[in-house]
């Protein structure tokens, strides 16, 4: 017979059982301690950001001429890189929202890293239209606000749609990221001391995992997923309309929206893999980020690579089938004109190389995946370069054709954008758990309770 409640001592867990859960200990480990390689990497990233900042000050002072812009190309590397980073941000929402709605449980181990990647990629991307303005102090012209000139923005312009799409995407991504983090911040709060505890206490918003809290949290995640799913499809569609709404040969295509969305998911997954492979290795998270997760992401890469391949082929077919001379010339010049290297890099890296993922052994071979994804990221940058630069430099009248050469200023800012992104991701790794602890626990406890595993 059980002893009466009054007789039960305030003893805690039985001695043979660890006081904390293994998931808490393992996943919070990267946030503790000081590792010099980490600070070396962070220092390098900060230096990269500082050099780009110095170059940008120079550009702002001298003018956009130093950015390689010259007749007829006035959308250069900044816009290429803007589209690249926006695309990278799509995998996070796909993993967090769309796979959540499909109840794909494997996402639980990778969604936090992907969400962080989304937030930092969008923050990075959002800088580029501002840098591209040249007169960055005129940024406020983009925002519809009452002013003494009674001057309003043009709501029929895709560039303005972009302003709304990107700011909505950034806001929703940050919200999604933070809502998911709240229970994990509470775990960190319960185990931290000093200043860290005070900060986590504020950020955890009094989270205790009570029934009403979990219920409100689960519904919020569900509703945010429902909102983010059409949003993620809309954002890159709207970015694609920056081009497709114009009448530039090579841009004016109805396939652009789905083509851009597939490309974004493709590039985004490649970046997730590029980041999670070293994170798993360095922080010894093999128990949580298994080969199974990487295989599933590889399948997504294979699928979206094939969609991209179809889109590339469809573009060429439509150019030929349309019978429009300008369109045909534009595509001929893409493959055999002055920018042929970027076009063939794009096709090779984005369509041909990923076909190797049909082989199961390669889908779980992490060094291979890492290298492949580096090529894919390069290929996706080239894809945007091909779309933007080749089309603009060879428009209708051959007399106004020109050649675009990337300037050192642009290369410096491009490198700075990778450093900026890396800097935020490295800071995130030290402050918050890179894997959603409560979601991992949900699977583990469920498996223990009901037997079997997911």
């Amino acid at each position, binding site marked *: 017979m059980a002893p009466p409640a009054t007789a039960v001592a305030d003893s805690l867990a039985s001695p043979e059982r660890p006081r904390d859960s293994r998931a808490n200990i393992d996943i919070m480990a990267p946030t503790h301690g000081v590792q010099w390689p980490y600070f070396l990497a962070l220092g390098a990233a900060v230096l990269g950001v500082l050099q780009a900042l110095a170059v940008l000050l120079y550009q702002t002072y001298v003018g956009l001429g130093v950015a390689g812009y010259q007749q007829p190309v006035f959308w250069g590397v900044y816009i290429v890189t803007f589209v690249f980073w926006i695309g990278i941000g799509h995998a996070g929402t796909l993993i967090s929202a769309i796979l959540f709605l499909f109840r794909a449980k494997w996402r639980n181990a990778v969604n936090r890293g992907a969400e962080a990647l989304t937030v930092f990629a969008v923050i990075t991307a959002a800088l580029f239209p501002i840098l591209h303005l040249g007169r960055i102090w005129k940024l406020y012209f983009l925002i519809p606000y009452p002013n003494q000139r*009674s001057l309003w923005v043009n709501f029929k312009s895709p560039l303005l749609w972009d302003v709304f799409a990107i700011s*909505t995407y950034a806001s929703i991504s940050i919200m999604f990221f933070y809502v998911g983090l709240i229970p994990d911040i509470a775990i960190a709060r319960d185990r931290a001391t000093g200043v860290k505890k005070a900060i986590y206490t504020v950020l955890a918003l009094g989270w205790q995992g009570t029934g009403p809290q979990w219920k409100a949290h689960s519904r*919020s995640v569900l509703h945010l997923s429902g909102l983010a799913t059409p949003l993620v499809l809309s954002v890159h569609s709207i970015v694609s309309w920056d081009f497709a709404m114009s009448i530039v040969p090579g841009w004016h295509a109805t396939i652009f929206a789905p083509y851009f969305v597939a490309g974004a998911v493709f590039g985004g997954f490649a970046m997730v893999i590029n980041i999670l492979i070293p994170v798993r290795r360095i922080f010894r998270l093999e128990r949580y980020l298994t080969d199974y997760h990487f295989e599933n992401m590889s399948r997504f890469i294979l699928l979206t690579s094939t969609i991209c391949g179809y889109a590339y082929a469809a573009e060429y077919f439509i150019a030929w089938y349309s019978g429009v001379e300008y369109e045909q010339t534009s595509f001929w010049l893409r493959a055999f004109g002055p920018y042929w290297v970027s076009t063939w890099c794009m096709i090779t890296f984005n369509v041909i190389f990923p076909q190797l993922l049909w082989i199961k052994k390669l889908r779980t071979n992490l060094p291979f995946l890492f290298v492949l994804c580096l090529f894919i990221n390069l290929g996706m940058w080239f894809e945007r370069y091909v779309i933007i630069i080749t089309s603009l430099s060879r428009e209708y009248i051959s007399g106004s054709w020109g050649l675009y050469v990337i300037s050192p200023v642009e290369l410096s800012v491009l490198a700075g954008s990778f450093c900026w992104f890396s800097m935020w991701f490295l800071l995130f790794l030290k402050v918050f758990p890179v894997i959603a602890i409560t979601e991992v626990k949900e699977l583990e406890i469920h498996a223990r309770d009901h037997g079997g595993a997911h």
Partner: protein
Amino acid sequence: MPTLVSVFDFPSNTASAVRKLKDRGFDDLKTYSPAPFTELELAEDPKPSKVRRFTLIGGLSGVTLGFLMQIWMSLEWPIKIAGKNFASIPPFWIVGFELTILLGGFFTFFGLLIVGGLYPKRLDKHYDLRFSAEEFGVVVTCDERDVAEVEALLRAESAKEVTLADS
């Protein structure tokens, strides 16, 4: 009033204990869980969450605000663009859609804060570090005369620990 703090290892036992306590009329209870579990949520409160109302109101406000803003601004500063009406509805769907999502998202977030009672505050007296590890807690407040019954019920559902906290 006496308060019994019980600790469980599994969500199924916790949910079963909550169901039985509620069946017996012990409604003044609170659960703590390290992760979300549907069975526990259904046992404690099967009603739909009020967060959905916030999402709906936010979404509707967003689409209304989006269209009104664009129509008003286009008419306030009329410029003919591509021969279209000043207030041309089809392109306005883009910004209207984005604001639907934006306000829907913000309202959902505030709904979470309001419905979930989330704001920086002092933690419950009976909250335990173990509840953010892997254990579950059920805290029941009952009359003095019911303590033995509640305790027996909790132990019958495999509570690994039952403590009388207040009396």
